């Protein structure tokens, strides 16, 4: 009776350990469609969205993922994901123009910023922060998704990005927030603020007094310029050209995304497989270690405390079985290490492919921004002279 009790306790421990080490991964194969505003929103009530280059989130990489995360790929993703998000928002037709912003100097009605928290082909997590031109933060949310192999099916891949659900969800949340929290007058106000911020950037002498900041630093419209104000017309002309500049940068990003898509998808698909295998191997190895240890301990107990020959023999056999389990755990761990190396190699391979593209994208964007900014500087001087001529200072 005493032996039965010990065996019972040992079995419970094994079950508990095994259960505790088991992982449950919920994979999504469902598709979240993009919601469209049921109302036909007038054009002057459509908010323009600027999507900032995402933070690669290198500082926030978990120690357990450090080995399998390639920093250069993360940087490449931080340019890739915003473009997909901007395309998604643009296709939703719920907004005005939606652009990936090369810098923060062009004011938009709504800004979407993000930090990539995880991306390994199987799972992706992005923290999104939305603010508006007044400086008010709408919300910060974390979007994560674990996809199935089905998402890499060529037919599915042809239609959408494997993680398109994340982008669609972000777009839907953005629309829901706007519908719930913003009235038409507030939208008009935000558009006015972004326009005046741009005007301030070029002609602060004229437009500084049109905006003020409250205690929290949020912008408020003090007054509006006349629609036929020549200074405003000049600034609007320049803003049209700023949009052209931003549009040109979109073409750079489009080229970059197109160049990156194929190798990146290949990497993600392979990474998906490797990540799944790696995770299973690690879990299997961990289970084997625990189970083997428990069996060894149970066997030792049975062998030491066994009053009969059968019990002692059974205990010794259990110790042997436990040792085998532990050994197989080591084998699994070695196998996992091979897959980890494979992941690293995959990462290095993609890194070699996309890193020059990232550098090229950055170089082109910076060169164009520099040229444009130089022209903007001349226009600022002319606008300042015009202002001086208007007030008779010259």
């Amino acid at each position: 009776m005493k032996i039965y009790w010990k065996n019972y306790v040992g079995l419970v421990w094994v079950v508990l350990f095994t259960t505790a080490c088991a992982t449950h991964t919920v994979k999504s194969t469902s598709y979240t469609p993009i919601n469209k505003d049921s109302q036909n929103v007038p054009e002057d009530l459509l908010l323009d969205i600027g999507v900032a280059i995402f933070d690669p989130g290198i500082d926030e990489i978990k120690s357990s993922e450090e080995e399998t995360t390639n920093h250069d790929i993360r940087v490449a993703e931080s340019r890739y994901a915003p473009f997909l998000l901007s395309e998604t928002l643009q296709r939703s037709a719920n907004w005005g123009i939606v652009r990936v912003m090369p810098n923060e100097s062009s004011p938009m009605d709504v800004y979407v910023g993000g930090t990539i928290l995880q991306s390994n082909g199987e799972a992706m997590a992005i923290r999104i922060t939305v603010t508006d031109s007044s400086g008010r933060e709408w919300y910060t949310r974390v979007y994560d998704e674990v996809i199935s192999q089905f998402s890499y099916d060529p037919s599915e891949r042809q239609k959408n990005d494997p993680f398109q659900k994340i982008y669609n969800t972000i777009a839907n949340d953005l629309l829901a927030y706007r519908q719930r929290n913003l009235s038409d007058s507030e939208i008009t106000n935000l558009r006015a603020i972004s326009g005046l911020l741009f005007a301030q950037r070029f002609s602060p002498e004229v437009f500084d007094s049109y905006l003020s900041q409250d205690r929290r630093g949020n912008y408020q419209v003090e007054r509006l310029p006349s629609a036929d104000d020549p200074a405003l017309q000049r600034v609007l002309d320049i803003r049209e050209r700023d949009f052209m500049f931003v549009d040109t940068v979109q073409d750079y990003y489009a080229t970059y995304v197109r160049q990156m898509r194929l190798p990146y998808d290949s990497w993600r698909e392979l990474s998906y497989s490797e990540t799944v295998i790696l995770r299973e191997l690690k879990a299997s190895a961990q289970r084997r270690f625990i189970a083997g240890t428990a069996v060894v301990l149970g066997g030792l107990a049975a062998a030491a405390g066994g009053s009969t020959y059968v019990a002692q023999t059974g205990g010794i056999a259990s110790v042997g079985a436990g040792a085998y389990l532990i050994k197989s755990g080591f084998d699994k761990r070695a196998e996992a290490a091979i897959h980890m190396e494979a992941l690293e190699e995959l990462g290095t391979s993609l890194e070699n492919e996309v890193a020059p593209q990232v550098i090229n994208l950055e170089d082109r964007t910076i060169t164009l921004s520099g040229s444009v900014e130089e022209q903007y500087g001349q226009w600022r001087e002319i606008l300042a002279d015009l202002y001086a001529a208007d007030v008779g200072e010259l």
Partner: protein
Amino acid sequence: MKTDNLFKWLSRAVLLGCVGVVLTACSSSSSSSSSSSTAIPPPSSSSSSSSQSSQSSSQSQSSSSSSSSQSSSAGSPSPSSSQSQSRSDSSNQSASSGQNSDSSSSPSQNQGQSGAQQSVENGNNSASGQPSPNGDAARTAGGGSTDTAADDSNSANAGDLPGSASRFPSGQDDGSGSRDTSTGDLTSGDRVSQNGSLGGGGGDYSLDTLPNGVLSGSGGTKSARVLTAAERADLLDEQLRRGYEKFDGFILGERERAQAESNAAGSSAAGGASGGGGGQPMTLEESAPQFEIPGDLPTSTSTAQASESFPPPEDIPTGRDDDVVARQLREAAMVEPDPELREALWEEYRNYTGLSEQ
């Protein structure tokens, strides 16, 4: 006989007295001529050079217009007669009303100079009561003094330094001082006119926009005309417009290049496009010659190129809901003469707007 001698002496005494009176009258007429031209009796034809100076002085004081005509005549090649010289001197003296020329340096240091200076001051005083003509007189005087530069270097310097009268001590006559300031120094003239201290100086205000010598016909005409605020604004607007054109040409060219690369990347992606991209974008300076537009052409490069339009394919909707990119794709496709490129652009339009997915 005694009586005859007495009459003889008396007649001599009277004659001497008359001569004395005449001489006294002549000497006092120079000083009194400034007070009133009518008070001066016409000099005798046998009068000395001093009487000639007196005459020219009286002429310059009697009427501004006559002084002006004299000055202008002095501007022409003048004969080297003593009379013209004295006229020129008197002109210099009257010019000193608008300038800070040192009268002591004037070559004609004759007896009537002090009287001439007085006449100048009096002329200024009377000018302050009549702003507009006096403004003309002052301008003419300035021109006249400049015209006499060949004869008098001091006068020439004074003419070249407009508005030196503004450096007069503050005790100077306010009317002439403010007017001179406005006529001479453009900058200070602006300030004066803005401050409203230029009483009734409508004629002088026009001078604020023009440098000295333009109206007088002197060497100052070579200098550029100073622009009004409106003209300056027009020029700056024109400069801005040229900047727009240059920028438009540059950015449209860059966009075209980027879109072509994007399309190429899209088509070659299936074959495994590798990194590198399409090279660096041009800078504005690099692109400037390519997109430079003649200054007098108001049209931009894009509008010049968009001369012919091709209708969209049947499956393309009206495009009323197009965003900026779709609209630009549509416009690019509609003006693309190459059928293959045009179809590629329409395909891009379909992809972008989601038509291909429907």
